[in-house]
């Protein structure tokens, strides 16, 4: 009984850290552009594929190098995708074309993975050995997931508050027009935000590849759960993702153990609907004054 609770909590928090990482990658782009990138889930899975092709059964130094490579590759791809997404926003009155274009990008990426890799789930060997928590053997990648969440939380906090570049991005999330008027290169900063979000999911997907389903159709599920984590924590709040992610993860684990693995996504959907009905601004979200 106790070990079951331990499994649910430890694995739930670990899986939830992955959702939190995706949520943080949502937040930085959303802050800078108002866009929620639907393709982020497939970008994350791409990190997993990078681990399979570049760093399966290798030594630690090579593995570390490849993690950086994976992050940079995905960052480059997300930047390119962001550039395409921002193109029609330059002039058009239609401001929500991004919902369609990021969705289309997600479909394209998933389709390319499906065509080139087939509908299989790939297994990646873990570099970090498994360990015991409360007497339960736990894969090392779970610890990496939690570690990555904490690392990226503090890295983003430092970046957004202490560096000039980060402050500039914070400025455009607060008031885009004022930032533009002050002479900030808004479009370039927005692309940098896309790049950072790619760096987050690219490294995260790489790190946790041994414990996720590295398959072409997994992306949608991660983007969904990442979004639920974002909404639970409050859109825009990285602190919120530290709570939202693990919460969604534990609910998913609990569902898997008590009802069945195929009901995990249903549970996440119910959490999403519940939070939207009860507290749409999320746990750490702020209410804003209406603008008329």
């Amino acid at each position, binding site marked *: 009984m106790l070990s079951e609770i331990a499994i649910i909590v430890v694995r739930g928090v670990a899986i939830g850290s992955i959702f939190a990482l995706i949520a943080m990658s949502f937040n930085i782009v959303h802050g800078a552009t108002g866009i929620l990138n639907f393709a982020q889930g497939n970008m994350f899975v791409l990190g997993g594929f990078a681990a399979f092709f570049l760093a399966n059964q290798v030594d630690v130094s090579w593995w570390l190098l490849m993690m950086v490579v994976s992050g940079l590759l995905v960052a480059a791809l997300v930047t390119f995708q962001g550039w395409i997404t921002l193109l*029609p926003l330059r002039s058009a009155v239609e401001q929500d074309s991004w919902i369609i274009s990021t969705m289309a990008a997600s479909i394209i990426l998933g389709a390319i993975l499906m065509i080139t890799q087939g509908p299989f789930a790939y297994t990646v060997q873990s570099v970090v050995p498994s360990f015991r928590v409360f007497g339960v053997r736990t894969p090392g990648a779970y610890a990496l997931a939690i570690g990555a969440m904490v690392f990226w939380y503090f890295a983003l906090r430092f970046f957004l508050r202490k560096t000039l570049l980060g402050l500039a991005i914070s400025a455009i999330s607060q008031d885009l027009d004022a930032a533009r008027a002050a002479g900030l290169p808004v479009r370039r900063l927005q692309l940098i935000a896309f790049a950072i979000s790619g760096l987050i999911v690219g490294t995260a997907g790489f790190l946790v590849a041994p414990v996720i389903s590295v398959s072409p159709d997994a992306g949608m599920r991660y983007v969904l759960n990442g979004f639920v984590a974002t909404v639970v924590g409050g859109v825009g709040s990285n602190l919120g993702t530290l709570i939202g992610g693990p919460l969604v993860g534990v609910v998913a684990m609990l569902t898997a153990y008590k009802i069945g693995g195929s009901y995990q996504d249903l549970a996440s959907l119910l959490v999403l609907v519940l939070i939207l009905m009860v507290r749409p601004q999320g746990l750490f979200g702020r209410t804003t004054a209406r603008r008329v």
Partner: protein
Amino acid sequence: MTVSKTMDSGAQVSVSTTSRARFNSDLPQVWIGIALIAVTGFLPSLLGNSYWVHTFHLVNIYIAAAIFQNFLFIDAGQKSFGQGVLLGLGAYVTAIFFGMHGYSFAAASLIGLFAAFLGGLLFALPALRVQYFHLGFVTLSAAIVFPQLLMSLDKWTNGINGISVAVPWIHHEVIFGLSWLTIMVAVYPMLALVVHYAIRNSRLGRQMRVAALSPEAARTLGVKPGVMRFLAFIIASIGTGICGILYLPAVSFVSPQGFNMEMSFLFFMAVVVGGRGQLLGPIIGMWIVFILPNVALVEYVDYRLLIYGTLTLLTVVLFPDGIVGSVERWRKARSVLGRGEKAFRIDPFLERLKNNTQFTPSDTEYAVEVRNGVKRFGAVVAVGGVNMKVRKGEIHGLIGANGSGKTSLLNVLSGLSRLDEGSFLINGHDATRMAADRIANTGLGRTFQTPRIFTQLSLWENLRIGLDASTTSPSEGIRQLAAQLEAEFGQDNAELLSHGQRRLVEVMRVVLKEADIILFDEPAAGLSQSERADFAKLVRFLSRNLGKSVILVEHDLDLVWGIADTITVLEQGKSVASGAPEALARDPAVQHMFVGGARA
């Protein structure tokens, strides 16, 4: 001078006899759409080509689903990525009761339709609270979860094996080699098209579009945006559920894989590629995104998701209006012209409303009364104890520096935000806790700092939404006025109006609404000197000739002093002075507001 003026206004009012290009091509698109569906639906059967018969059964069912997606997406502004779920519910539940439990097809269909309706309710519930991308994710999740549930609940759904059904009678020939099924799946999308057109041109449809484009403006016109969204989801779920019922005999088999996300994407992408909001869009879009990969490039069928995605991305980047939308835009740019200064003028029309009655402000009755109103936003006190009385029929100026709480007070009066303390009355009735739409229905109308002009609607429709908001049947004068406005502006493009004209459109909208209390929020901002003079005359006319009470928030103090009967001064959220203009000009509390410290 006098002669030319008369001629001018005469030309304005007379019905223009020269035929002008249509503002939108909705009606021709309906006819073209019906013709295209008829050809593809009936011709293959007449020629006896069973491959195309079957293909177009499916295509035409999907077109109907995409038509309802188009309606939901554009007319109601709801971005749903889960319409495939509603079709799947209709098909699967019908299959379960018909194929597994031996119900008659008609009875099973009704149950299936009810299931789709319930699905629509589930989508509509979160839509009442949240909008924008949230709803997209909720519906997307539903599209992910639905096939998973069909698999897991195998006790009821037969799981991965799916359900086979046979409906023999539906394939029997009725006439000219056409079966019941062929007739039904061809007629249904035509019907869907007509329904979409009819809703769009009804009062409900116009209110839905306004609610989608500007919820605040809709609320001040007596519309509940939540109810509009809810109705839209219900209409779309029933329409899409029927597609599911037709899908069943057309395919004779349902399985969980048949209703994965791809189906929902297909409907959405067809609308985008064809042209968002264009009635013909779903037909052209479906031909391209479905027929191209599934028929023309059949050996590359594995690439169809890639093709859907690429076509959609290219459309968004290169032709944001979609195929039909781009053609329509080109047509409009060629033929619908602006009319410069003549594009919209209000005075010749108001002349028609003129009667000999002269109204004077009442001394005993109040249109609006605010008692110690307080409105806070977090720690910021926007309105901090305002007392104000607006007499019936008077022009009441509300002045004060930026941030003194004028607009916040207007928002409270129109119900867009609520007082934290105190109360206010409208026509003697407490309205403190009333929602914006109810306040609007008690006879209050307002304009906004930025005029709410909807370029998707023709100029006449922009005015007509005021008429739609009227709670009583229109008076004879308004009826005549409306007829003239329709004849004059029925095909005009509101996008081409100047800023001053847009303001006047909003004023005319409120006149048509027959609101007896009108709130103006900085109406003169951005108007030229002569436009200001015209506007002052207009406000005077509204008050003295039509007997309306007016609250005027304005920075142009000369304008306010020129026309107001009473002026209230706000400072840092408090009412510091109130009275007749002449008396107030000498009030030391007001003097500092004028350049040089005194009003000349």
